[in-house]
């Protein structure tokens, strides 16, 4: 186990370093000249040369990358072109917003997956219709799902609010996770308001990954229920329910977990779109604003943060997988 953890940590570092190289290269090949963007297009040549020296852009590429990497390790993501503020400062309050939404979306995705996997195992026309509906929903881009949810649950039924994270930003909590902040402050109404704001965007981002997960889970369950160990358990008079939960689910959860990486990636990109639609003040909305204003340091900062979150998350999933499924360690 120690050897496995060490190897996994090593590959985590390699991947994070490669991500930083990629983003560094993208910043250098990008169309925008950082100095011109900083000083304006009509800056005198002398000022440009001085700024170039000041930012270290006249140094060899490897030195520049080293400086960039040292900056990253110290939490320096560069300056935003459009606001002239450090990207790290701008992102600070947006990270919890996106993480809170992502956690809820993940939660919904797991519920959808488990319920649908159950439906998939049933037969008959109702199950067929449900499968078709969810297959269609999973094919739809997340911006359409978000739009349709706004039309139905906000404009027709008035069940949920449409915009932002909270109606009344009275609690200024320590964590930035509004539901948690409300609970910590003993303000239940505040938490409930935050939950209501969370439901629609989280649901819009969770349907695609949820359905994909359900298919893997259902395949694994039906394979497990037809396998030799299930037959043995049946011959020992174990009930179907006990076989399902004690044996098949545990075996099926391993492929489902290993698919988690791909799903988390697609969920992150849906969040970018969904945040824009629901005016969710998180990384995604910040990213789309940065894209429209061609603010590449900001784009690079968000990509690095989301990328790092994703990479660390998949590493954690791998470790959990090794704990759940002893066969993984041999690979």
């Amino acid at each position, binding site marked *: 186990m120690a050897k496995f953890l060490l190897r996994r940590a090593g*590959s985590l570092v*390699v*991947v994070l370093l*490669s*991500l930083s190289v*990629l*983003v560094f290269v*993208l*910043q250098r*090949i*990008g*169309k925008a000249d950082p100095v011109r963007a900083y000083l304006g297009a009509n800056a005198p040549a002398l000022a440009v040369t001085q700024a170039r020296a000041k930012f270290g852009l006249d140094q060899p590429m490897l030195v520049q990358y080293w400086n960039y990497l040292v900056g990253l390790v110290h939490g320096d993501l560069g300056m935003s072109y459009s606001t002239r503020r450090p990207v790290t400062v701008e992102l600070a309050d947006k990270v919890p917003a996106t993480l809170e939404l992502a956690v809820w979306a993940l939660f919904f995705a797991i519920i959808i997956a488990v319920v649908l996997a*159950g439906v998939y*195992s049933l*037969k008959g026309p109702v199950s067929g219709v449900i499968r*078709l509906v969810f*297959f*269609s929903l999973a*094919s*739809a*881009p*997340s*911006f*359409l799902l978000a*739009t*349709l949810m*706004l*039309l139905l649950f906000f*404009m027709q039924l008035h069940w949920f609010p449409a915009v932002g994270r909270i109606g009344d930003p009275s609690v200024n909590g320590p964590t930035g996770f509004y539901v948690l902040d409300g609970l910590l402050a003993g303000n239940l109404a505040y938490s409930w308001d935050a939950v209501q704001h969370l439901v629609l965007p989280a649901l819009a981002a969770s349907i695609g990954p949820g359905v994909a997960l359900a298919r893997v889970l259902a395949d694994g*369950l*039906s394979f497990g*229920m*037809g396998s030799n160990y299930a037959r043995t358990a*049946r011959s020992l008079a174990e009930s*179907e*329910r006990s076989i*399902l939960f004690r044996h098949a689910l545990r075996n099926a959860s391993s492929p489902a977990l290993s698919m988690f990486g791909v799903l*988390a*990636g*697609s969920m*992150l*990109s*849906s969040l*970018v*779109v969904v945040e*824009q*639609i629901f005016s969710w003040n998180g990384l995604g909305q910040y*990213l*789309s604003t940065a*894209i*429209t204003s*061609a603010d*590449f340091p900001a*784009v*690079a900062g968000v*990509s690095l943060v*989301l*990328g790092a979150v*994703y*990479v660390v998350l998949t590493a954690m999933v791998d470790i959990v997988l090794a704990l759940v499924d002893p066969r993984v360690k041999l690979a």
Partner: protein
Amino acid sequence: MLSFPDLRLDRGRIRRTGRRALPFSLGESIALVCLLLVVIASILGPIVSPYSPIIPSGAQLLPPGSPGHLFGTDNLGLDVLTRVMVGARTSLFAAVVTTACTSTLGLILGTIAGVVGGWLDNILMRITDVFLAFPGPIVAMAISAALGASLSSSIIGIAIVWWPLYARLARGEVRRTATSMHVEAARMSGSRGISLVLRHILPSTLPTVAISASLDIGGVIAVLASLSFIGLGTPAPAPELGLMASMGMQYLLNSWWVPVIPGLVVALLALLCNYTGDGLRGVLRARGV
């Protein structure tokens, strides 16, 4: 309580393969026919349509069903039907180009890795490892943002992120084929190097990669539309489906059709491609590929 009655004696699985012996199920055949109809409509529609996709042709924000404007008009008075037909054509074309580029790149690199082996194989596979560890869509966004927002930079972004999947697949197929009898026989009869690869190995790896690529087209359509939605496609007023939906969002309250119809068209295209792809996968499984 959940139960799996039809799997106790593997009856379910036998029946499923029995059904798959038919090339396509009824639903999948319908999807295929609909897909062909949509392709034809998206090619012929813009030619037949009396309206231009970028020159206003009527009153603003006419609802669907208005005379002369079946899907209504948008905030500029552009005919929505004409725009979504042009958009669908762009979408399909871009998705096919993207998957073709990505899978060709992956096929070439994967075949090289599989055939040459040794250190080159090692290096290429470590590179694919690193790429597969990245969050694909996010990196694709970063790449196309760095290259400047346009449809071609979105395509490049997706291609750079997705080739490793095909490279893995191709390498695996090559290694499997390389040990098979017919390649052995070809080697015996003196076939070497590139001609061995092109004449004996590639013909059996190509279909797998091509089919896997065609399965991905539906997903690529949705990803391209999402990139265009967040501003990484061709700038307005280009008739791109994602862009149309995002520009139309501000009219959602009063004129739902402006943002919703382009989104529905993306969903329809992706669904038809996915459904047809599922049929294709079923055919392959039935043939034991």
